[in-house]
C-alpha cells in the first residue's frame, strides 16, 4: 500500500492540468487584440480520464505524472482581423477553471489532513 493512492495521484494530475489550462486561457486573453491569433485550450479532463482508464485496466506504466497537458489550437473566427478570441467566453472559462482548481486543492487538503491524523501529526 502506497502512501499516496491513485486518487491522490489523479488529484495531483488534475492540479497540473488546471494550472496548464490557466496558462492557456491567460494566453488567449493576453492576445485578445492580436490580429490572426487563434485561441488555445488544454482539455485536461479527457487526458486524465484516459490515463485513469488505462490505470484501471491494469497498465502499471501509466501515471498521472506522464499525462501530456499541451495546449491545443482551437480555430474559430471572432473578428475581421482573423482573431479567434471571444473575451466573454474566455473570462467564463477562466473563472470556472480557477474555481475548479480551488476545489481540487480543497479535496487534496482534506485527504492530506486524514493522512496526517493517521500518522499522528494533527494540524
Amino acid at each position, binding site marked *: 500500500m502506497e502512501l499516496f493512492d491513485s486518487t491522490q495521484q489523479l488529484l495531483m494530475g488534475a492540479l497540473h492540468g488546471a494550472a496548464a489550462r490557466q496558462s492557456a486561457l491567460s494566453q488567449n486573453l493576453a492576445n485578445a487584440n492580436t490580429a490572426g491569433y487563434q485561441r488555445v485550450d488544454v482539455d485536461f479532463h479527457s487526458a486524465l480520464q484516459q490515463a485513469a482508464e488505462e490505470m484501471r485496466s491494469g497498465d502499471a506504466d501509466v501515471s498521472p505524472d506522464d499525462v501530456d497537458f499541451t495546449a491545443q489550437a482551437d480555430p474559430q473566427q471572432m473578428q475581421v482581423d482573423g482573431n479567434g478570441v471571444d473575451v466573454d467566453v474566455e473570462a467564463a472559462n477562466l473563472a470556472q477553471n*480557477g474555481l475548479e482548481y480551488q476545489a481540487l486543492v480543497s479535496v*487534496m487538503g482534506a485527504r492530506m489532513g486524514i493522512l496526517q491524523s493517521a500518522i499522528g501529526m494533527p494540524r
Partner: protein
Amino acid sequence: MGLFDSLAISASGLSAERLRMDVTAENLANAQSTQGADGQPYRRKSVVLQAVGAQGGFAQALAAAQSGNPEATGTSTGAQPGGVEVAAIVEDQTPGKRVYNPGHPDADAQGYVTLPNVDSVTEMVDLISASRAYEANTTAMQTAKQMFTKTLELLR
C-alpha cells in the same frame, strides 16, 4: 510550467495593452499637429501585436544547464503559451484631410493645410478596447493569484 507562467503571460498582456493606450494617447495629443520632425503632418500610429511561445522558463533552463548545453535555454518551443509581444508600431499611410486656411503657417501654395490622419472617434474606440483588454488581463492575473494562494494554504 506552472502558475508563475500564467502570471507572466498576463503581465505581457498588461504591458501590451498599456502600450496600445500610450500610442492612442499620442495619436489624440497630435490630432492637430500639422508639422512633425520631418516637416510633414503627424501620421496616426498603431501597434501590431503578435503571440509568442514560451521561452523555456526556469525548469527548462535548469535542465539545459545540467545537461551542459546552456545554449539550449533560449529556444522557443512554440507549443507552450508564452504571452504576447509588440511586433511593431506602424504609421497609418492614409492621406490626411486638407482644409483651406491660407493664414496657417503650414498652408501650401494653394492655401490648403494638410491635417493629420487622426480620427478621434477611432482613437476613442481603440482606447476603450485597450482598456477593457487590460481589465481582462488583470482578472486573469487575479484568478491565478487566488489559485496560488489556495495552494500555499495546503502548507499551513
